[in-house]
């Protein structure tokens, strides 16, 4: 396969992302100039961090499979590390945590190998069985259930779920002539992020009734509906140039991403609420932690992957 030469549509998609970022930078700079009395520090920081995120994403796409898999592996590592830094862990589980960390390179090796069967069962089955065994060998039973439950859930969310993004890159290229290797991944990530942003904007503009006030005060019914509709429209519009999806399939994919993105977002919010923190970390200035940014993708990546996989692969 030829990674350097994307189909034209993919080049256009990448250019569009750069264009959107440039627009965001211009708007934020203009706001600073026009309303000097207001503090736009966080907005500027946010946009600047978006440039970093898109650059890393571009590096993940532009070279070859090895580099792609490395980048996504490191992203999973950072997310898992952030998760473990947040949750209470037992002193006795020090070694078990190392085993859990080791699952990351192994999982991404299956991706690199394009070994689908192993990729799909390694964490849900083998790690589910191995980690408690390792804990039992240490022998600390106080808090065992809580420890193994939180550890495996974290591994599923930050490693298993997110590794589906990387697996989109190793699906057979011939099945997606318009999008090439990178089309599906760009489609997924672009729509998930647009969904986040548009749910936020719709919510800020028209939102009144809170949709799930116990978990998140910022989420409104109007934001949710407006966001999902925006995502569905864009999904249908972009699908012919990046994916093998038909019009109806694209509408379903858009609805799936809109809905799943929302659920991923509030699931991570619930986690943060439970732990009493506002942000999951501080690695991305203006956004918070890496999980704050990837929250929606933890749901959309596996769901979109299996949707496409069932229909076309």
């Amino acid at each position, binding site marked *: 396969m030829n990674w350097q030469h994307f189909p034209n549509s993919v080049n256009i998609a990448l250019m569009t992302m750069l264009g959107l970022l440039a627009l965001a930078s211009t708007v934020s700079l203009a706001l600073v100039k026009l309303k000097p009395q207001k503090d736009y520090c966080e907005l500027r920081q946010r946009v600047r961090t978006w440039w970093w995120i898109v650059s890393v994403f571009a590096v993940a796409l532009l070279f070859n499979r090895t580099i792609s898999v490395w980048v996504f592996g490191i992203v999973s*590592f950072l997310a898992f590390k952030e998760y*473990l*830094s947040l949750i209470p*862990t037992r002193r006795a589980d020090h070694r078990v*945590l190392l085993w859990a960390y080791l699952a990351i390179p192994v999982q991404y090796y299956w991706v690199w190998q394009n070994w689908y069967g192993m990729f799909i069962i390694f964490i849900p089955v083998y790690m589910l069985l191995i980690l408690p065994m390792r804990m039992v060998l240490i022998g600390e039973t106080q808090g065992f259930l809580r420890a193994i439950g939180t550890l495996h859930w974290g591994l599923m969310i930050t490693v298993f779920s997110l590794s589906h993004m990387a697996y989109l890159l190793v699906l057979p290229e011939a099945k997606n002539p318009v999008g090439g290797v990178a089309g599906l991944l760009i489609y997924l990530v672009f729509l998930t992020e647009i969904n986040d942003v548009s749910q936020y904007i719709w919510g800020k503009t028209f939102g009144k009734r809170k949709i799930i006030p116990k978990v998140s005060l910022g989420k409104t019914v109007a934001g949710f509906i407006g966001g999902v509709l925006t995502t569905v429209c864009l999904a249908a519009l972009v699908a012919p140039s990046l994916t093998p999806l038909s019009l109806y399939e694209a509408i379903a994919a858009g609805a799936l991403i809109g809905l799943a993105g929302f659920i991923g977002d509030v699931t991570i919010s619930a986690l943060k609420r439970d732990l009493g923190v*506002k942000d999951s*970390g501080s690695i991305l200035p203006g956004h918070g932690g890496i999980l704050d940014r990837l929250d929606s993708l933890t749901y959309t990546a596996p769901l979109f992957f299996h949707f496409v996989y069932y229909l076309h692969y």
Partner: protein
Amino acid sequence: MLRYLFYLLVVKPLVSIVLGINVRHRERLITHGSALIVANHNSHLDALALMSLFPQNAIANVHPVAAADYFLTNRFLKWFALNIIGIIPINRNEAASGRDVLKLVLAALDRNAVLIFFPEGTRGEPENMGRMKNGIASIVAMRPQVPVTPVFFYGLGKSLPKGEIVLAPFFIDAFVGKPLLWGGNKQDFMAKLNAEMSALQEQARQAAARTED
């Protein structure tokens, strides 16, 4: 040279990539000219994590002060501790005998070194500051112009607890306090230092639990 490369190629990547450190008020660290840094001690990583906060060009001038009876026991460890990590050894057993123990420390301060101290004496309970020993006050009493900067680390006890040899990656937080100066009285100085350290510890607690809205 080896020491420079060790910090550049091993310590800095280890602390920034494998662990990941979030520093509040890094600018308060005094990097040149004689100074003391005082930190809580939870793991062997403390000294290395603290060292990594300094700019690479200042490293040659920064030294952790460490127990001679722990680090100078075998030949390899001694060579590594003195030449690579660059510790200034201090003999805990002779601590009662006064001035002589601090000879190397005072000499280093007179050479404008920045020295790192763990005044709990030994690695304490994770994320907690034990009672600080008074040795630090004795040093400042003899060199009253030297500022003392407290630093509180959160998360290192989780990463490499006492008794473990393999470190687990965790994000860690470092809180740098305001530099303190010797006021002329041992009790007052230790009280000030303890208060500043408790304030940092409280700040760490709050940072770990910033409730939404």
